[in-house]
């Protein structure tokens, strides 16, 4: 596998948390940004019924 030997140089105890953390923090940050900068996610999460009529237009 490409780059498969990188862990002979990078310590897994350092590299693995960085990799997994980057994925976790990255996806969390995107969702957080959407929640804080738009209104529809928090509306949805607060249990307001979604508007089926207007969304289809």
């Amino acid at each position, binding site marked *: 596998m490409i780059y498969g030997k990188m862990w002979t140089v990078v310590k897994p105890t350092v590299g693995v948390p960085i990799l997994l953390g980057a994925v976790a923090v990255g996806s969390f940050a995107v969702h957080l940004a959407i929640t804080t900068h738009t209104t529809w996610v928090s509306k949805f999460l607060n*249990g307001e019924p*979604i508007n089926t009529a207007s969304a*289809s237009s």
Partner: protein
Amino acid sequence: MLRLSRRLVEGWAELGTRFLPFADAATPELPLSRLLRLSLFQVSCGMAMVLLMGTLNRVMIVELHVSAALVAIMVSLPIVFAPLRAVIGFKSDTHRSALGWKRVPFIWRGSMVQFGGFAVMPFALLVLAGAGQSAHYPAWIGQVAAGFAFLLVGAGVHTVQTVGLALATDLVREEDQPKVVGLMYVMLLTGMIVSAVAFGLLLSEYSPGQLVRVIQGAAVVTLLLNVIAMWKQEARDPNRHQPRPAAQEVEFQDAWRLFRSGPEAMRRLLIVGLGTAAFSMEDVLLEPYGGEILRMSVGDTTLLTATLSAGGLFGFWAASVVLGRGYDAFRMAAIGAMVGLPAFALVIAAAPLDSPVWFGTGVMLIGVGGGLFGHGTLTATMRAAPRDQVGLALGAWGAVQATAAGIAVGVGGILRDVYAAATEPVLGYIFVYSLELLLLVVTITAMVPLVGWRRGHATRNQAA
């Protein structure tokens, strides 16, 4: 101040071991904290089972208005993977790894799969229900997606549980196995009870957003619990990284043949299946029986679940204590099956006598019997498993157990409906309970040659 806090901590630790059942499961090599940590994977399995069988079952029908037949199909999908537990266990027995691990990679992958299933599940369910815009799309998208999500969760639970139990067996000495089995069962039950209450509270005010949060929260909790559980548990075995020459590569069929050739291996599996079926068929029938036939209130029927769990806990505890002293595990399972006989008799008698007390007593005894039986068969499986076939043996046990339980619950419900429709409601229940009695009798009969009651104690001990 410091001294006070230290004394508090010491007192707390002592209190922990004194009041915690199975505290003596710890050995010098394997402290209690590590065992408790390992058993967290059972909590995540219990949580997944409650979510699939209980919470989502209800949410799909009540809140999402999915047809009952479709719900039944979805919920029973994970059973499809149950027989594969034997293969999963075998794979982990023979896993080749440069890192020297055989159990950790499987628990990791199983957790990932379970996590993935939960991650897509809420949206799949909403699409399945045709909510929002999804009605504009063909129905099969929702069905396929929901089925896929249920399959993923099922595959994850089967993998994690099989390999997790195998890891636990690897780690403890043989004389400590009964206590570990007890601990594992208790943690499974704990996970089920705690998450049932938690899901009930969290979803008491339903909204699609809340459903998404709860299920995806369960996904994250699963991953966290399983990672904590397996963290640094398995020692790396340097012998594992030499790849075997192809000629020595073990095939599943060969391993299975070897396993079958063990003493009465197939009879043991048959007994596990029959007994499990006998103890699970009433699972979804107890509460409606109490409500419909004995006219118990909703609160009282909910108490039944607690009664059953309490009986089960007592069974696990008693079995752990007795088996820990070296008592024959299969004999313990036979005693469990025998406790089931008066238990179901009491449950049946409760209808003509119109006595909720008899019913409650019977339910508790079912719990005790089921606990003794489950503990006995699992401990027997662990004890009988050859060191290099632990995964396969536990996988086979789990495969039979999970398949039998799943089929029995389904068949029990169907039989009740069919028989009640043909005659009257009471007889539908009584028919199923009588069938369970019959199954128990067959189970006990099949066990006679194994427990050696005919030949007496002395000859058996020599044979063992």
